[in-house]
């Protein structure tokens, strides 16, 4: 008979149930993050930073130190921590807007400088917290509050290919991957490799996680999974793009 839920040890039970919407992918990504922290035994060394956007709701998610920053600014805050205290394991947690729009210069430059931090970016194709506006990752033709007739790529460009970009600008030693909440075992492995990359100090580590926003997508569970597994993967290829010690393009 199980009396306690099977939460990662690094989760802070006192703040559960967490603040994310029913069916939100953040819970899944943060579960994978928590399990990786447990398995690597680094809970006491973690400095977790969250962006503004839905990711801000994770500020008290873990039994680790955590800093809630500004929209797009988590990467520099955590870079600041890491530069001053290299013994800390720094995770910058953000959404697609934070990483690819307002904070893209920080992502690009942290990656270029090969900062020894781990960026985990949750891609749900829209701005969730502000009410479902078009994001850099909104799919072509996808309806959002600011693309009510569907995203017109002629006018607004194509979905940002984040890991591809980061992979192109990081040197050997960095880790870059795109996982999905539809394949949690794989996503967890990617996050673990990202954190190991930071632990080994070989380079920047970046994982984009394809995730769901049933609230703004206005999808039921079936359509939610369908969108993540079938629609999103048409544009966002799941897999590792750069692994320390391995040739590129795996």
């Amino acid at each position: 008979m199980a009396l306690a839920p099977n939460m990662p040890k690094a989760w802070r039970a006192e703040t559960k149930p967490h603040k994310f919407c029913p069916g939100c992918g953040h819970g899944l990504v943060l579960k994978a993050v928590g399990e990786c922290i447990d398995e690597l035994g680094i809970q006491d060394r973690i400095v977790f930073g969250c962006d503004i956007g839905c990711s801000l709701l994770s500020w008290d998610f873990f039994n680790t130190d955590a800093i809630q920053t500004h929209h797009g600014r988590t990467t520099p805050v955590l870079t600041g921590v890491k530069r001053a205290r290299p013994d800390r394991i720094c995770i910058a947690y953000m959404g697609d807007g934070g990483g690819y729009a307002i904070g893209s210069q920080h992502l690009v430059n942290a990656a270029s400088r090969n900062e020894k931090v781990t960026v985990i970016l949750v891609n749900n194709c829209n701005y969730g917290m502000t009410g479902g506006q078009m994001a850099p990752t909104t799919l072509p033709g996808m309806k959002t509050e600011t693309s009510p007739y569907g995203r017109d790529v002629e006018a607004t460009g194509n979905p940002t290919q984040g890991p591809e970009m980061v992979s192109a600008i990081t040197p050997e030693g960095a880790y870059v991957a795109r996982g999905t909440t539809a394949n949690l075992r794989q996503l967890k492995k990617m996050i673990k490799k990202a954190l190991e990359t930071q632990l080994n100090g070989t380079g920047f580590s970046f994982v984009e996680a394809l995730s769901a926003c049933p609230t703004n997508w206005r999808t039921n569970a079936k359509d939610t999974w369908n969108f993540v597994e079938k629609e999103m993967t048409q544009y966002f290829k799941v897999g590792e793009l750069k692994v320390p010690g391995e040739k590129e393009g795996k």
Partner: protein
Amino acid sequence: MVSTAYKYTQKNCDRATFTLFTGLCKGCGLCMEKCPVKCLEWSNDLGVYGTPTIIPKDVESCTGCGMCQLVCPDCAIVIEKIKK
């Protein structure tokens, strides 16, 4: 400190014990969709947001594979396989 003891319901299936923490379940239904044998259905027990939770519809079909536990964003499900 907030109490971390959550209310739960259990169902003893043939091959696994299914535990659902109603204090954590938000009724999103992701687990239902991912269940490979489609053995889950909406329950009369309400979850943390006052929405229906889930329960195996019978004791036979659950294989104890743990997929529902894996995909629950809220860690509301625990599956314990019964070793025979």
